[in-house]
């Protein structure tokens, strides 16, 4: 990474050369990398702060590596992905994964709980032409990742902060608290306490600005589990007030289904369900 310890990125004197940035895509919907292009007001400043060397979605001018920073979107779902992510790592001084797919496996990680072969047969007329893995896994399961930016999609202001920080040679300031703190800061009344709506906010990483509760809905956990998330405590409480796994399982098995903290508690719920239905069959 360039510019070690130098935070005066706007000063030309002694300024490190602009970091060369690449954007790579794996299994994803492209929404996260597009949020870079959504930075309309800031795009010119971004372009002057960094050199966008490889960004197929934005430009056909695709320059070869190595790159100072690679932004990686998407999860690993094919044997080819497994090889290509190694190439990305080799070419990149810093790897930043962006979005729920890259950081947790994405919505497509629901396949991890299903029958991959069956899915292929249902969807494709000639499944023998398809080469894909039985699982969708985050980038960090394959290579060391330097920074993970969460969200489905990511928050473009946070992406800008990561880019500014990397260009300035400092740690990105991405808050690690729960969504609840954002609700309280914006004055949103707790939808769980005041309306009994099951909400993942208490265990979900900040980043969206608490949009869903502000629109009278529970948090869907788009930004994945917060640091040291007590998902068992939350689910135990929701079950004690009458929410069943019919509601809780889909809530947990969503964009961040395969994030370890969410997956552990959803597995606990589904195996308890399985035991229960087994028990009722015996009766």
């Amino acid at each position, binding site marked *: 990474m360039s510019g070690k310890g130098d935070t005066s*990125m*706007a000063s030309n004197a002694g300024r490190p050369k602009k970091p060369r940035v690449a954007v790579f895509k794996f299994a994803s919907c492209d929404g996260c990398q597009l949020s870079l292009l959504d930075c309309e007001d800031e795009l010119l*400043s971004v372009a002057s702060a960094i050199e966008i060397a490889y960004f197929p979605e934005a430009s056909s001018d695709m320059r070869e590596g190595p790159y100072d920073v690679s932004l990686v979107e998407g999860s690993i779902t094919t044997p080819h992905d497994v090889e290509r992510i190694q190439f990305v790592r080799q070419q990149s001084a810093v790897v930043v994964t962006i979005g729920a797919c890259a950081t947790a496996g994405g919505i497509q990680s629901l396949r991890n709980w299903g029958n991959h072969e069956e899915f292929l047969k249902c969807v494709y007329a000639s499944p023998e032409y398809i080469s894909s893995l039985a699982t969708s896994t985050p980038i960090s399961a394959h290579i060391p990742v330097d920074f993970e930016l969460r969200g489905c999609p990511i928050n473009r202001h946070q992406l800008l902060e990561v880019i500014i920080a990397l260009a300035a040679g400092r740690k990105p300031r991405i808050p690690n*608290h729960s969504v609840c*703190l954002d609700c309280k*800061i914006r004055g949103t009344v707790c939808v769980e306490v005041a309306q*009994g709506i099951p909400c993942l906010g208490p265990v979900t990483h900040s980043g969206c600005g608490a949009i869903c509760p502000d629109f009278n809905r529970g948090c869907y956990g788009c930004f994945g589990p917060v640091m040291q998330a007590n998902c068992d*405590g939350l689910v135990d*409480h929701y079950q004690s007030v009458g929410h069943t796994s019919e509601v809780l399982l889909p809530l947990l098995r969503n964009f961040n289904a395969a994030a370890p903290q969410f997956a552990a508690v959803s597995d606990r719920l589904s195996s308890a369900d399985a035991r229960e239905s087994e028990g009722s069959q015996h009766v």
Partner: protein
Amino acid sequence: MNQPATSDVWYFPKDGLTELIRVLQEDGFDVIGPTVDQGAIVYASIQSAEDLPKGLTDIQEAGSYRLEKRNDESLFGYVVGPHSWKKFLFPPISVVAAADRIEGHWEFSTPEEPQRPFAFLGVRACELAAIRVQDQVFLKGPYVDPIYQRRRESAFLIAVNCTQAASTCFCTSMKTGPRCQSGYDLGLTELKDGFLLEIGSERGQQLSRSLSLRPTTAAEMAEGDLRRQQAADQIHRTLETDGLPNLLKQNLRSSHWDDVGRRCLSCTNCTMVCPTCFCSSVTEVADLNGDHINRERRWDSCFNPEFSYMHSGIARDSIPSRYRQWMTHKLSSWHDQFGTSGCVGCGRCITWCPTGIDLTVEVLAIREAAATVESVDRGTNHE
């Protein structure tokens, strides 16, 4: 009409509230009061008495809050909700300093807050106590907080005595209510058809001269007493404060912290709704070119793992350790630091905890566990 004197109690009919709000607005105040929003009674800027929650009440339990209709048209027939006056005196986000790079050098500035003074309508006794606690924190130490000071010193406080209590209230244990004793400019007690008005300050006395008041009758005074007594009678929750600071200090290794840690989500809700919690973090936020930098202060919480991040890592790296930090600060070391308890007994942390953790119950559990250990110890000594 006689000139109201500080010691007197005056009466005005229900529609006098409209006049009070108008007088405050004419005096340049931004009147903040209770109003219904998002299924709760919150504090926000109000334009007239029409904005107040007429004929509504709040049903509060640990982890639950619901609005219900009353069978009367009371304007203050509820207790405290998710908001507190803290958010106006100690704003959730504020810019404390700014720096601009101009022609190769830095210019530093303190942003002005062009701001109408606040008039708070409907401050409850526990909330007056909370403001006193935050005064101690922000104004009485060696460092005075200028943002808090500016907002606090200009604020006009209209207290309202509670005429009912929620199941989560325990102001009687904390000796902060339910009667508003001092710390307000005007104090109100809502009767069936009007309000009793008490004057609490010179400012209050001056403002009251613009209101249409008349002396009270004995019947009105009796009605006021009865209604205030009703609130006191409805409070059943208790927190035994006797020896509490030491009890917690002596039980830092109680296994009960792990028990509560399994239920606590470390989500920060209790600290955000607490009217006395004052923690914040300060960061420098730069624009893309690094030419303009704001030093921003935001509410933060001891429940955030990184809040205790120091040179070698996170000091309170588990939920039990963070819950313990919060409770022992609030109920124990706050006394050492500020000379009072940090808890005013408003019950917000109980209602607004998503899993319904109740600090009065947790304290009791620690007290009982300590008593058991003590009696076991004594038993061992006898043998």
